């Protein structure tokens, strides 16, 4: 009873904190200086049509590196917690039709995933979204083929390789004295082309690989090896 009252008070308190946020909120009309710089810079300095991508991959590249790391940590952490429990592995007997068609579908999904992250600088989406799509391809594989074993070492290798390569590109920026994670290590190319925007598509592809393999690892572990 006392607890219920306390919960109600807590919720009321939260609302009280947020109320002035709502009443003081005003839809903005113009970009602030920083955002305007980003839009401007993305087009002129980085040659990247998707401004969000240039913010993620370049301007706030350190965040993104961190973000990939967080996902990596989750993979490792989930592994530390759950690995080695085969007995409660999830087995769902699939439909025969699904089993046969899945192989085709998986291939298609993978291609879609790769498309998404290689075009991150041009269209919406990028490494993270593409990575998830790849992981969902593996998920389909897992669900459709009971005994499908997704090689841990390959996943591991892809994960490590893409991570190290990502950091390596960052270092290349330092070596060329243009700054850690600067995409200018590659030429800008023609605005709007696939091979343009410096190293941004490369970085985003590596992120895509890393996220894809990490998420797959998480899924595999959560399912029970």
């Amino acid at each position: 009873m006392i607890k219920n009252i306390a919960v109600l008070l807590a919720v009321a308190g939260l609302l009280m904190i947020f109320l002035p946020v709502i009443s003081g909120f005003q839809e903005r009309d113009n970009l602030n200086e920083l955002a305007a710089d980003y839009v401007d810079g993305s087009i002129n300095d980085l040659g990247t049509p998707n401004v969000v991508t240039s913010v993620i991959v370049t301007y706030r590249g350190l965040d993104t590196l961190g973000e990939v790391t967080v996902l990596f940590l989750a993979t490792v952490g989930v592994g530390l917690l759950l690995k080695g429990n085969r007995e409660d592995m999830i087995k769902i007997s699939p439909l025969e039709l699904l089993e046969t068609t899945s192989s085709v579908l998986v291939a298609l999904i993978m291609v879609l995933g790769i498309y998404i992250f290689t075009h991150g600088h041009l269209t919406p989406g990028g490494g993270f979204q593409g990575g998830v799509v790849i992981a969902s391809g593996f998920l389909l594989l897992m669900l459709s083929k009971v005994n499908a074993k997704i090689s841990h070492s390959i996943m591991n290798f892809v994960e490590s390789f893409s991570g190290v390569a990502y950091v390596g590109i960052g270092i290349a920026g330092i070596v060329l004295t243009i700054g850690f994670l600067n995409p200018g290590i590659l030429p800008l190319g023609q605005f709007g082309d696939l091979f343009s925007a410096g190293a941004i598509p490369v970085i985003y592809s590596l992120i895509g690989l890393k996220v894809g393999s990490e998420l797959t690892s998480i899924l595999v572990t959560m399912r029970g090896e």
Partner: protein
Amino acid sequence: MISMYTLILGIALLVIGFYAMLTRKNLIKIVIGFSIADTGTHIIIVSLGYLRGKTAPIIDGAVNAVNAVQEVVDPIPSALVLTAIVIGLAVTAVMLSFIVEMYKKNKSLSIDDYQELKW
């Protein structure tokens, strides 16, 4: 004023999520509550980045590269939310693996059964 509506929506989801964390006894529901609160947070953030009548910050057919600055919404909150979503997934996954292990040890999903440490 559409971002005002979404802001309110986000706050409502956040509070509902917290309410679930405070009242549900089932561990998985507590995590669901956390996940709802997380979604609410993300909606709040995107609402803050919206500019009246502007479009996505992608230079393509719809947006002219020359006066893009006048035509697009704020890209920064989008970038931040992207990061936050991924982090949210990571936290949720770790939380759920805790629950799986806790259940294996104690065969219970009720948070009330996990208070051997206190005072």
